[in-house]
């Protein structure tokens, strides 16, 4: 039986030659059910890690020690050895900031806690009831994770979070995936409805003709995993990159080569039950709402505990849910084709954005093609590439709002003059 995390602070105080420390504990329980083939699984995880810091004239040495499953004697031995090794990896000097209150945000659904198997059962029932849909492969999961942090500044905090996720492939080839925190807002039912429509449409889809199109994205298409087309903006806002001189812009500088003068992007980890919301970040720093870009100009950097200390400012827990400012046009206006055909993206097979350069490629899995004077047609299979900074800088955004996963913002985003190839 491993040492309880609550006992570690007592032990840490007696480890010689350690100037400051953090203890991080995570306990996870995940239930899932699969189809194609049928099965069920439970994953139980526990991680207990200590970060030790030793200061010298040349800077701060750091060590990370995994103490999961250690009894007290083993933990003491590992900590003593780690304290010696800390001198081998020295970076710039910094100190832990004074403790600050975590964000007050709900991220655990009481209906899910203690009822993971029941929740997965209910999601399975929703899938089974969806009329006209045949799932050839599915994974439905419910997860409860408990986080605890303690520091040498006599600070300790903990919170629970719940997460429901689904990944379903239908017989017609449509794939729906998503995640949420609450049973009643998992997004599965909405995704099933959309997929049913898409599955029928896919059967009649014809290949996309290579041409220059105007592209229209809804909230679901924008909320791709890993921040989708916003990934380069998120990466450039990293406090570490900015400190090392690796970011293409610094706070106060324009983000886009052209346009984007009304583009404002906020990181908000305090949205109740937001997919990326949390009271505190990975090193125990409080999560705060902050502005990444305001009217096209970089404002704040993403700062964990260390980067905040190195920058001499309070940390903010890093980039979380993204909130994009509304535009000046209605969704109906943006949905109308102009001089070029309009491709309304129903599903992207992938969107791959290089976080450093912003170069991206994306494959259109399913779209609706609108030409003035013609009936809409369903099309599939087209590749486009570009640069996220250039594309977002000239994107047109709707007044109306939508949300999906980590994304909050315009329900429609249109980018004109994009070459699509086959």
């Amino acid at each position: 039986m491993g040492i309880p995390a609550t006992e570690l602070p007592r032990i840490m105080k007696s480890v010689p030659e350690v100037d400051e420390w953090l203890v991080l504990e995570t306990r996870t329980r995940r239930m899932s059910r699969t189809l194609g083939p049928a099965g069920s699984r439970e994953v139980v995880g526990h991680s207990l890690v200590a970060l030790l810091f030793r200061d010298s004239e040349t800077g701060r040495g750091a060590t990370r020690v995994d103490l999961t499953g250690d009894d007290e004697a083993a933990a003491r031995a590992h900590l003593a050895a780690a304290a010696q090794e800390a001198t081998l990896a020295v970076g710039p000097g910094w100190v832990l900031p004074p403790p600050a209150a975590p964000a007050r945000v709900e991220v655990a659904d009481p209906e899910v806690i203690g009822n993971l198997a029941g929740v997965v059962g209910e999601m399975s029932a929703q899938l089974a009831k969806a009329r006209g849909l045949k799932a050839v492969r599915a994974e439905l999961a419910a997860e409860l994770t408990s986080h605890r942090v303690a520091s040498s500044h006599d600070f300790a905090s903990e919170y629970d979070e719940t997460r429901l996720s689904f990944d379903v492939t239908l017989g017609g080839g449509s794939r729906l995936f998503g995640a949420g925190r609450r049973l009643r807002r998992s997004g599965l039912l909405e995704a099933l409805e959309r997929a049913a429509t898409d599955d029928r449409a896919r059967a009649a889809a014809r290949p996309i003709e290579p041409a220059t199109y105007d592209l229209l994205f809804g909230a679901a298409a924008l909320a791709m995993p890993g921040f989708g087309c916003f990934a380069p903006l998120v990466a450039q806002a990293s406090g570490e990159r900015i400190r090392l001189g690796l970011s293409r812009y610094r706070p106060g500088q324009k983000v886009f080569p052209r346009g984007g003068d009304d583009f404002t992007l906020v990181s908000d980890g305090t949205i109740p039950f937001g997919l990326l919301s949390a009271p505190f970040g990975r090193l125990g720093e409080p999560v705060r709402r902050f502005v990444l870009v305001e009217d096209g100009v970089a404002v704040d950097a993403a700062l964990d505990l260390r980067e905040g200390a190195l920058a001499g400012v309070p940390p903010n827990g890093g980039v979380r849910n993204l909130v994009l400012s509304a535009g000046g046009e209605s969704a109906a206006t943006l949905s109308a084709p102009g001089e070029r055909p309009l491709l309304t993206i129903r599903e992207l097979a992938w969107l791959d954005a290089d976080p450093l350069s912003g170069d991206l490629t994306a494959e259109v899995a399913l779209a609706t093609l609108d030409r003035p004077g013609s009936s809409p047609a369903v099309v599939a299979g087209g590749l486009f590439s570009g640069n996220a900074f250039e594309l977002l800088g000239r994107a047109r955004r709707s007044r109306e709002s939508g949300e999906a996963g980590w994304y909050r913002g315009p329900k429609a985003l249109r980018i004109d003059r994009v070459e699509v190839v086959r």
Partner: protein
Amino acid sequence: MPSLSRREVLAALAAAGAAPLWLDCRAAGKPAAPGAAATAGRPVSDLHQQLRRVVTDLERSFAIATALAEVGSLRRVRIDEDSRAVDEEHAASLVLAASDGASWFEQATLDLSPGGIEEAAAALAARGRSGRGGRRARVEATAPAGRMRLDPRRTELARWIDRVARLHDRTRGLGGSRIVYRAAALEVEDRDRVFVGDGRDWTGRVVRSMARVLFLAWDGETLLSEEASRAGALGLEATEMDRDRLEAAVGGALSLLTGRALTSGEHDLVLDPSVAALVVRHGIAGGLLADDWLGGGAHAAGLAGKAVAPAAVTLRDDPGAAGAFGARGFDDEGWPAAPAALIERGVLRGPLTCRATAAALQLPRTGHARRADAVGAAAPRPTHLELAPGPTGADELIASVKDGFLVESGISGRGDARGWRFAVQARRAREIAGGRLTGRSYGPVVLGGSVAALLQAARAVGSQPQVVAWRDPEPLSVSAPHMVTRAWLGRGS
């Protein structure tokens, strides 16, 4: 040229589209705290004995019961012009799986203490029906790590740092003053694996090492990058990179100084091994995974048994390839490593499978089960892909192209099995006219489109394969030579 500070040099890195080693070396989504870490763990022999008992007990309640345990670490050392960093991640995982003949039940835990394992076994047993099973005889085998000259477990940390420092020292002076920045890194994964059940009792050790060097070139306005790497089932000798490899990377970085924007379109292309490897990984093999074939959703599923490429094209996955970065002795379901033919002399043979997908598709089990994050659901994934070389040297392949491009230095790629389509980003394309390189370079570039069309248009493969390796998200290596084909090529940005 004014002398540049490190900060000024690095400030232009984003324009080069290259990731600095110290940022690339972080596991996706899990940035590691800097520092060296002490080792921890229970003796593997002790763990093995307990798993044997646990599986025997489970076999009383289930028709089949298995246990897969992995214990190990991933350590990284990074050195650049004025700093050094060491970090280490430890991993311990156990997946207990059991079937009652109709469904499979799995219980996974990251707590490999005796109590943690007993708890997981009890939770799984509670889902069983009694009296169906019985102990099965097990064949024992050991899959040792590949031959290593410098075993990471027997080498103290200071020596690791010294080897990376010496690799970094070797880069000094290469490329002259136009190379303004150099960095070196070593990443070593060292894991013990135990599988018990379903008639097998296997242990193995997997050691994978990857050494990388980054060069940045400066033309007064723009910073451009190129890297050299060496990866395999090696020990610390991975840092012994030959001078040719380093000079090739330097030459590549310097050639980018004259890159220009490309006009998009379909072209005859010679793909260098790094680009061909990305096409193989994301495009070709990306459509040949059995979980995508379920329900007939994958485009390639309708082409099984048909000629999809000229006879010059043969592709297989060989998890037992000696010294390969992606190699391992048995898969995550305990199935033995064996080569699987994907495309044989142009004919599509079939996908990679795991236990469940092989049963569902009524195909042979190829033993390519991989569990995401060690405890996720098993799905078929490639390990070490090999595009068989041909008889023709690279110079002859270029000479065979009247007008087109030599695409070099692959960066990344993506693919979609449903349409069997792909896209690969590369650092540059060199113009070919009349079978000769004109000296004009363009970059960065993207090639993409239909995999089926690219395969049909493939004309030849080169005679000198090179190996490219990645760890995102799972360890994978590809051995690929040059390849001549036709596809859409456009600007990267």
